[in-house]
């Protein structure tokens, strides 16, 4: 059993409420920080921990915090990104639903470290019932004096509020989230200026993912060095992985970074292996990261055992690797069609493009149309090259990373499964049935293109 830092007490009775949470050591990090530490010392512990942003980008949290501008007389804010919309990702929902006070506690401790006047938790609209759970937790925390004026007599004032979204993947991008929080359309802003300088209401703002903020709690409790003892290299601590797709045991798992991919996929402690049939492909970190064939998930192109870390999962670059991303893991068995799944991804990004940048707005639509055509047996061989060309023209040419996120799944599917696209063009009648590979798994006619 790996160590659990966030989920240690998640199955304890009454953990959802303040009393049960306190009984299991809750709010200790607030006491420790406010009574015995300076804000700078808390930031220092987070730096020492090596914690990296758990929303997908993996940027060092301590460094992000140290960029926060502190002009005198200007209020600062901390915003929690609970917009969790990356397909395959549902870890934050699980955490907020089961142990809401962990997030509230993390917000207070982080708010103290940053000298923030107030914090907002921006939660996606679809999670309305989770929003209610957090509202209750916040009300409990106010009533018990963990929020509000002069917390624990320390002189630190901190207000925490919920904010509900209304269905927009793009609002997971931090500047789009801030626009949305200001009551506008979720159009990402041009950076710089970064939110650390001009964020919410043009004030210095830190935006962090739910899991990142929750991780601050054990880091302050046990010290950054203790946290950094878990993991491998620059991937320290534990990570929540939401596992789905054709696996035997879907769910949210807290893993120690550095366990092998094989253990994660096949052991009964985690996914429990592939359901029924053979493993075909894996998306390790949410739909935006490159899809890779099953064998490349388990071992790198050089034949080394692949680990669940930021570095190991991206070993080989985009040619043969992928990314840890948000930890939205899903696996495909050999009944699944990669072309159909890629079309599905393309439709998602087309729907979710905010429409600001032409390459993304137009390109995602064209990719969806071409993939629809190929999947339904009306494609031409040139369409595959055209798809490749379109995704190249989107990547890197947009204000926010949604363009890249739309391009990568298409690029990686063609890179690793080009023969499957060609099969769709060659045998249009066979692919008319949406279940085409469920009856007869696809057999590779070509060597995988990475070889």
């Amino acid at each position, binding site marked *: 059993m790996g160590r659990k830092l966030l989920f240690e007490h998640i199955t304890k009775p009454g953990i959802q409420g303040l009393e049960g949470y306190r009984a299991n050591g809750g709010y200790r990090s607030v006491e420790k920080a406010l009574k015995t530490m300076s804000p700078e010392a808390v930031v220092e512990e987070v730096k020492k921990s090596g914690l990296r942003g758990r929303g997908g980008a993996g940027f060092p949290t301590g460094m992000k915090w140290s960029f926060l501008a502190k002009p005198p007389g200007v209020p600062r804010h901390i915003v929690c990104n609970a917009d969790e919309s990356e397909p395959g990702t549902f870890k934050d929902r699980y955490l907020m639903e089961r142990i809401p006070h962990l997030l509230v506690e993390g917000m207070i401790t982080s708010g103290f470290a940053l000298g923030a006047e107030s914090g907002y938790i921006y939660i996606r*609209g*679809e999670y*309305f019932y989770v929003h209610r759970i957090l509202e209750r937790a916040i009300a409990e925390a106010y009533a018990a004096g963990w929020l509000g004026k002069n917390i624990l007599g320390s002189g630190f004032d901190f207000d925490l509020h919920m904010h509900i979204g209304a269905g927009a993947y793009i609002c997971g991008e931090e500047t789009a989230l801030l626009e949305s929080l200001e009551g506008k*359309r979720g159009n990402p802003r041009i950076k710089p200026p970064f939110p650390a300088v001009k964020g919410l209401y043009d004030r210095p703002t830190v935006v962090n993912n739910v899991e990142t903020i929750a991780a601050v709690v054990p880091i302050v409790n046990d010290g950054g060095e203790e946290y950094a003892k878990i993991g491998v290299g620059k991937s320290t601590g534990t990570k929540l992985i939401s596992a*789905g*797709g*054709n696996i035997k045991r*879907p769910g949210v798992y807290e893993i120690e970074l550095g366990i092998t991919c094989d253990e994660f996929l096949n052991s009964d402690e985690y996914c429990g292996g592939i359901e029924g049939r053979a493993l075909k492909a894996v998306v390790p970190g949410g739909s935006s990261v490159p899809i890779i064939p099953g064998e490349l998930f388990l071992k790198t192109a050089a034949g080394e055992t692949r680990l669940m870390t930021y570095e190991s999962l991206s070993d080989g670059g985009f040619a043969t690797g992928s990314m840890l991303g948000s930890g939205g893991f*899903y696996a495909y068995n050999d009944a699944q069609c990669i072309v159909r799944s890629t079309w599905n991804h393309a439709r998602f990004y087309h*729907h979710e493009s905010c429409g600001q940048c032409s390459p993304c707005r137009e390109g995602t639509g064209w990719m969806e149309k071409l993939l629809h055509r190929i999947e339904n047996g009306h494609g031409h061989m040139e369409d595959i090259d055209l798809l490749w060309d379109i995704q190249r023209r989107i990547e890197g040419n947009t204000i926010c990373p949604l363009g890249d996120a739309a391009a990568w799944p298409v690029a990686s599917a063609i890179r690793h499964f080009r023969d499957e696209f060609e099969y769709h063009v060659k045998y249009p009648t066979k692919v008319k049935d949406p279940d085409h590979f469920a009856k007869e798994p696809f057999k590779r006619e070509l060597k995988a293109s990475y070889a």
Partner: protein
Amino acid sequence: MGATIKAVTTREGTKPFAFSEAALAECRSIIARYPAERSKSALIPILHIAQSENDGWLSVNAMDAVAQVLGLKHIEVYEVASFYSMFNLHPVGTYHLEVCQTSPCMIRGSEKIVGHLSKKLGIQPGETTKDGMFTLKTVECLGSCGSAPMLQCGAKYYEDLTPEKVDAMLDAMRAENKRQTYTDR
């Protein structure tokens, strides 16, 4: 969303809209969460309340009432309401069934659930049954990939769906005949 432009419905034929007292009180408490002069931040939460008070959709009258509450120009409300996919600019059925169709759900059989619902209700995604009871919609990832296939109706998630579970859900809904909205407690 940007890529799918939704037209704002015209005023004609829509019934007048006014917030209830309870809703206005809730609006005031939401506005208090933001700094003074920044009350526009309350727009999305208040649009949710207006939608729930207007049978699950935002008529122009409802949006205009929101503009009035927040002291905004009408266009500031329309442009936001038309951006976010949870705001319905056309009437919806008593039960608005939103089936997640994104890849992790697709892998676990969401297409069969959509097909089953379509057959049972005699409508295609995007349509409402003649009796106004059900609207079927396909939506993008709802963050429930570990319990796929799934659908959302109002604030409730219906997870690990099978055709049998869907049938039982529809029967229970027909028997209860009570609108489910996102803001249900």
